[in-house]
């Protein structure tokens, strides 16, 4: 197929064909990544700029590795979070990056919609590495890749995503992407973190994790931002963990050898217990590896031009 997109902003408006094409490309990229000498000249002379307005270790490193394996030059602009509405605006930063003739911009930003905002201004492509509480498409794509690697076709499979749904861009992107692939998606969390209007995403929702688990092929625990407790969204970590923590005991309720995902970093003992996190059902480290492959695929598709890594 012919790749048309300039940017990767989210999965809500991405076609199934595009998702398939990315996953297929990532498979090839993963093979390259697994080689002892992982360096390609494909993107030699191309520059990829990471612009991170939020702290991130794994996502930024993952993008950097992905770009470097493909031979691109990478630059990171880490901007303190406090600069929002102070100092240089995103608009001006965008213009600066444009003037430096970057070929691709990776943006993480605390404001929902910032990636589209940037993409509308810039000639070079933009990959959304997480915009506020809106979308985190590369995370969802690597999650889907990981699920398919283990389970094959996801059509008709059942996933339970549990945690702070309201504030989660990971949950949103996964909900859009997985539904497009025919997955039965159930979102689970306390009412304060799972407002009724989330039904608008077309998914099932419930407050009761125990009743949602039976039959689930995939269970995804989301990272709980501990400061949410201070804003009164739930009374205590203890109660949260009792109701929504993923434990071995609870995981048995699926009635099958379900796989467990977590976007990381984990709060062990809060949303996921040690034994689940380190257990055989958890694919958390695979997610990290696949993350590099997915990001290689996206960078390649956006700025690889006519070079022919993927037949």
């Amino acid at each position: 197929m012919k790749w048309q997109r300039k940017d990767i902003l989210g999965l809500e408006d991405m076609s199934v064909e595009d998702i398939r094409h990315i996953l297929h490309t990532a498979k090839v990229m993963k093979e390259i990544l697994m080689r002892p000498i992982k360096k390609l000249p494909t993107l030699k002379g191309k520059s990829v700029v990471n612009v991170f307005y939020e702290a991130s270790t794994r996502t930024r490193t993952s993008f950097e590795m992905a770009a470097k394996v493909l031979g691109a030059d990478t630059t990171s602009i880490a901007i303190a979070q406090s600069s929002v509405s102070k100092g240089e605006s995103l608009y001006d930063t965008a213009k600066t990056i444009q003037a430096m003739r970057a070929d691709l911009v990776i943006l993480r930003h605390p404001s929902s919609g910032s990636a589209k905002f940037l993409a509308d201004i810039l000639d070079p492509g933009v990959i959304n590495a997480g915009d506020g509480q809106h979308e985190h498409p590369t995370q969802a794509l690597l999650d889907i890749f990981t699920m398919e690697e283990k389970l094959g076709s996801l059509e008709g499979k059942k996933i339970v995503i549990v945690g702070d749904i309201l504030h989660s861009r990971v949950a949103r992107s996964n909900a859009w992407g997985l539904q497009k692939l025919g997955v039965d998606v159930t979102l689970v969390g306390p009412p304060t973190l799972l407002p009724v209007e989330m039904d608008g995403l077309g998914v099932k929702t419930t407050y009761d994790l125990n009743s949602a688990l039976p039959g689930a092929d995939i269970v995804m625990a989301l990272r709980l931002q501990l400061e949410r407790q201070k804003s009164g969204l739930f009374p205590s970590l203890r109660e949260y963990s009792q109701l929504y923590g993923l434990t071995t005991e609870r995981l048995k309720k699926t009635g099958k050898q379900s796989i467990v995902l977590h976007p990381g970093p984990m709060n062990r003992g809060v949303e996921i217990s040690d034994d689940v996190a380190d257990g055989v059902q958890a694919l958390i480290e695979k997610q990290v590896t696949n993350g590099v492959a997915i990001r290689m695929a996206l960078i390649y598709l956006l700025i690889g031009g006519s070079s022919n890594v993927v037949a």
Partner: protein
Amino acid sequence: MWWLKDVWVIDPSQKLSAPRDVLVQGGQVLEISSSMTEEEVLEKAQGESIDAVNGQGKFLFPGLIDVHTHLREPGQEDKEDILSGSRAAVRGGFTTILAMANTQPVIDNRALVEFVRRQGERAGYAHVLPIGTVTKGMQGAELVEMADMKEGGAAAFSDDGKNIQNGEVMRLALEYAKLTGLLIISHCEDKYLAGEGQMRRGVASARMGLKGIPASAESVIVARDLLLAEETEGKLHLAHISTVESVDLIRRAKKRGVNVTAEVNPHHLIFCDEVLGITDTVLKVNPPLGSRADREALIEGLRDGTLDMIATDHAPHTQAEKARPFAEAPFGIASLETALSAVWQHLVVPGIISMDRVVEAWSFSPAQRFGLQGGSLVPGSVADMVLFDPEFSEVIEPATLVSKARNTPFLHKTFQGFPVMVWVEGRLVQRDRKVL
């Protein structure tokens, strides 16, 4: 002397909506009658030159009175100032505008009230009437010197932009303002419920991951203020009503005889939250765009008189401020120049609201409620008037806007139906869309 011939006069103050000839002399409406001969007019002119205007196919109505504008002067003149704002007003068909007090500094004493008033006079376009704050520094704690500020020309009191969270302060304000006979205008917003919200809480906010403002953030304060007005028998005006629950509360309070009026903004009558895209900061407004049901309830409320007035809530911002990710952009729509045409295009032409009702709600009712001159073309009235041409077509372009602000959702849209002549005290200030 002006002679407007065969023009469709809409004047709710005399329940008139019919073709008439209108004479204007010495800044006042001289006469309105079914038809006049040239001899009669010459005689009345008594030697004064006559400017005759063929009004066929056009409407003449009293100049619009906008009780809710932000002119940003003093302090934020990069967004707008009183000169540019009052020029925008007359271009849009407004002859009197009330300027909200949340400038920098806020208008919380007589000197500042007089400054705003004076700047309006110096500009010399629309009448600019200052609204004073309710509380010192708009801090929601201590009352301003209301009596003194009234002497200086304050037309009402409002902490608009912020809500007075302390119910007791609001109660005292409604009591004390009785000394002045002026209205307390309430910006109804519970700050805890609104939180850091960016748009109305609902499916659209959930989908986009934008923090939501629940409808209750407005309605609980509407309920509170209605009860306080009832208890104190104070005079209350509710700004920018936007929810179905608020309309319902106001309707019931009016049945009980509460001394309250309410306004609705054109954008809440025209848009709902589902049209919002994640980068559409131009539609980021407070109170936020509501649901379809809200929009329908607002239209119904305007039709049945529960909502007494239309007001723009003209909120100019710079392009740089609006060119930001959604959560970082300021709330507000600049609307003085486009509001009347937008209402005409979106509500009157499709038959949703009559033009007679629009004129009543945007001119007559504000004049009555706020005790202002204008709002009527009864002979002897001040000749603040608008000639509206339903055929006149124009593209809304940055180059033609006279406001400093460009933050209108109608940019690059074509409207048909514009004010083409505007008089303030009988003096022509806008002709063929050009401010004179």
